[in-house]
């Protein structure tokens, strides 16, 4: 494999245009994927890493067309398997910047297991899950994140199963970096992606994404301009969890649940509020926050450090070489017991 030359020290300057491919973007007009693409391209450009060191790996779905639109190496693989393909890409060449793009169906339905294992292994890849709570590409069946009772093409009488919560799932899968953002929160999305890029290990980011055709307005009650302040808590590390129009509300611990309180009412002050700690070794806070519905918690739930899988794997190679010397092929072929015929 070619050695990666540019180090972070000699950060280069790139523009979004450098990262834009010549392929015509083929999402529906108004699809949330456009905004995510724009945000991501800007983040890639800003990292100062040459294009050739990026690999975009995706599965199948509308979201998974993403790699075609990024002028780096790209691999549009098969349904659900992107994390597994990415594992091979990254293990074979740990210098690469590997970004996985997946959907709620691709990532949580057919691909749930690969996702779980990639997360617990802590491979240094970044996984963006575009969650539109529907199957877009196959024209509108319900997905594992669709709400209970969802009427879709495949569930004309409503779905009968409990959705899975991607953030809770990622936490239970031992992910070291877990975040949530939304297609229409561009600056927030970019800051989260930037933090993910900095994180040395696996990063999982759920991105709430609107599918105008098959699930329009799925996140209206979370992200619509008129209510979003009251319906979102944006996590800030080390800061109390304040939200709401005029920042008048906050989240407070009540037993082992969270409650939403009004600042100033009943004597509640900032001091009573939960303070976010992204780096807490204990997952409890992050997990508890992931369960909230109204308001929905956005931002980085968890960001802890553990050596990454590919680093550990390559260290073993290095250690073995140091301990036993660079492998000698003839020695290996000969094995332990030989005899000579003359």
């Amino acid at each position, binding site marked *: 494999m070619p*050695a990666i030359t540019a180090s972070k020290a000699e950060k280069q300057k790139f523009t979004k245009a450098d990262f834009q491919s010549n392929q015509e973007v083929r999402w529906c007009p108004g699809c949330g994927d456009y905004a995510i693409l724009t945000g991501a391209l800007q983040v890639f450009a800003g990292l100062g890493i040459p294009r050739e060191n990026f690999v975009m790996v995706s599965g199948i779905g509308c979201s998974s067309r993403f790699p075609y639109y990024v002028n780096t190496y790209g691999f549009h693989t098969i349904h659900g398997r992107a994390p597994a393909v*990415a594992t091979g890409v990254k293990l*074979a*060449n740990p210098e*690469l910047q590997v970004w996985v793009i997946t959907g709620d169906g691709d990532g949580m339905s057919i691909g749930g297991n690969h996702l779980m294992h990639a997360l617990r292994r802590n491979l240094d890849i970044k996984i963006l899950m575009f969650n539109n709570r529907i199957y877009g590409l196959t024209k509108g069946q319900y997905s594992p994140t669709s709400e209970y009772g969802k009427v879709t093409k495949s569930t004309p009488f409503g779905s009968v199963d409990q959705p899975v919560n991607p953030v809770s799932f990622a936490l239970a899968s031992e992910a070291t970096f877990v975040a949530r953002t939304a297609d229409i929160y561009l600056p927030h999305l970019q800051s989260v992606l930037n933090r993910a890029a900095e994180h040395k290990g696996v990063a999982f980011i759920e991105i709430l994404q609107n599918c105008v055709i098959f699930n329009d307005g799925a996140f209206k009650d979370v992200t619509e301009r008129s209510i979003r302040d009251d319906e979102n808590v944006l996590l800030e590390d080390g800061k109390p969890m304040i939200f709401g129009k005029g920042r008048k509300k906050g989240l407070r611990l009540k037993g082992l649940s969270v409650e939403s309180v009004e600042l100033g009412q009943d004597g509640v002050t900032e001091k009573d509020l939960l303070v976010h700690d992204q780096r807490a070794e204990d997952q409890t806070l992050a997990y508890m926050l992931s369960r909230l519905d109204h308001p929905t918690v956005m931002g980085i739930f968890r960001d802890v450090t553990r050596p990454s899988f590919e680093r550990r794997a390559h260290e*073993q190679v290095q250690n073995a070489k140091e301990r036993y010397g660079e492998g000698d092929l003839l020695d290996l072929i000969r094995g332990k*017991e030989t005899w000579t015929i003359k």
Partner: protein
Amino acid sequence: MQKPLAPGVQERKRLEHVTVRFAGDSGDGVQITGDQFTNTTAIAGNDLATLPDYPAEIRAPAGTLPGVSGFQIQFAATDIYTPGDQPDVLVAFNPAALKVHVNDLVQNGVLIVDTKKFDKINMAKAGYATNPLEDSSLSNYRLFSEPITDMTMRSLQGLESVSAREKERCKNFFALGMAYWIFNRDLGPSLRWIQDKFKKSPGIAEACQTALKAGYNYCDMTDAFQAVAYEIPAAPTKPGLYRNISGNQALATGLVAASVRSGLKLFYGAYPITPASDILHELAKHKNFGVITFQAEDEIAAMAAVVGAAFSGALSVAGTAGPGLALKSEAMSLAIMTELPVVVIDVQRGGPSTGLPTKTEQADLLFAMYGRHGESPVAILAPATPAENFLFAIEACRLAVRHMTPVILLSDGYLANGSEPWRIPELSELPEMKTEFAHANGKEFMPYARDEKTLSRPWAVPGTPGLEHRIGGLESRELTGDVSYDPHNHERMCVLRAAKVARIAEDIPPLEVMGDEDAEVLVIGWGSTYGAIRSACRRVQEAGRKVAQAHLRYLNPLPRNTEQVLKRYKKVICPEINLGQLSHLLRGRFLVDVIPLNKMQGSPFTGREVLEGIEAVMEGRPVRQPGSDRPFLTTSNYSEG
């Protein structure tokens, strides 16, 4: 080497070849005994072939028939090709082992039995109403009823650091010592092996070594064994440095060799599955060769990771068995569409479904050929003997990388676990494997431009400046690789992928014919049937008749001259451990009336079975039909209740 201990024998009977089988409970150490015996035999310079056979359970219930583990070896002063049809010597550690195997023993064969387990309970478990060692049921054999376990215990009496249970478990070494005496073997290699193996428990090491020597000495002191003192002279073979090697070892070693020769990092992705797991275990040891082994969450992930690693420029290999190959189908198809070089090893076992996981079979050939949706051509190779796995592992890697295509290597349970002496090649004898990644040359990069000769596309790996491009599972446009729904492009690409694989025929040797060029009958085979066919053909020729043999090691594409070879003979017979897969392929390709000779018993053909088939064809009789021993039991012909 340590000399044999005072061999108190007047004269040893010379034999040309012998087949020995060890059998006992899965806990009796039968496989270790077999391995040690094999190794020592190999070092003594005999040609040999082995057949381990063990139950699917980790520790099947002690004393039961399904719990019996066996190991057979044939060794000889001449070339041999199979582990032997029937054992000449059988060592049985308990009644169940006796029951399962004694009928295979040749008339007047040597039967050594450990008397320890011949109690009521164990005899009942094996279904013996009376003690076979005492009634006259074994009178056709030269029976040695020996208190092997008891003698082992006695020989270890002084050893205090070792528990009684551990001592008892040394009985296999006692039996091995006896076998060594019978065949006049040097104890040195096994003594050294024990030392090395148990270096952390010197007590155990001493116990095993003592038991080994005690077994040897016991025969040496016991007159009765004089009658079975044999000598099998070394086989005359090509001079050189030799070792004994199993198929899985050879495969793993070949992969490392391919990595070293090509300068490509070896990436091995796998999920454990019998009988392929040992390849993973072996490769995981060789990290100082830069090998990356990845135990994935399942076979889909293993295959997908291998495809990803191939994209990244590694020498990328996946290993599995039938059920795992089924799961790899979709991701292999992605490798076909994206034209990435990957090697997939399928160590075939009894199917369908979980089937007979520890038994051998050749029934994945058509699956390898057609087992993906759409027109999905891949190259297919199959080594013929355990040691050939070494060269074919390299060859699979060479073809994958040179032709930018997935290659399936079909091994099987018999090749994987069987072993044979192998002349260790010089590094200079190994095939060249030059690989070049694409580099930017100032012109627009075309990821699907074709090499004129091979039709392969360039291997452009991430990290290479200027070659950024996208690949994927949707149909790709000629040259650019962009997604294309163009009807004519799709047709062209389908034909192109097929032509690319077909052109490998230019890069592989022609099919060789052994035996009599002017015979009427050609025996054509593939994979692990080689030995049995070779041995059968030799017997035909020894009987003064003519026969030709050709063995396909390349199944797709077939060697250029295959049609020509097939059409040269009046009759063609094709022995396979399946229901007729290669014969179907050849018939469809060449319209030649290939006669299938099939067996599906989880074990390889014996030479005799193939011989009978050849004779039938020569004499115009029908060959044996598998499963024809008795009619199916239907509701009308089995007695209910």
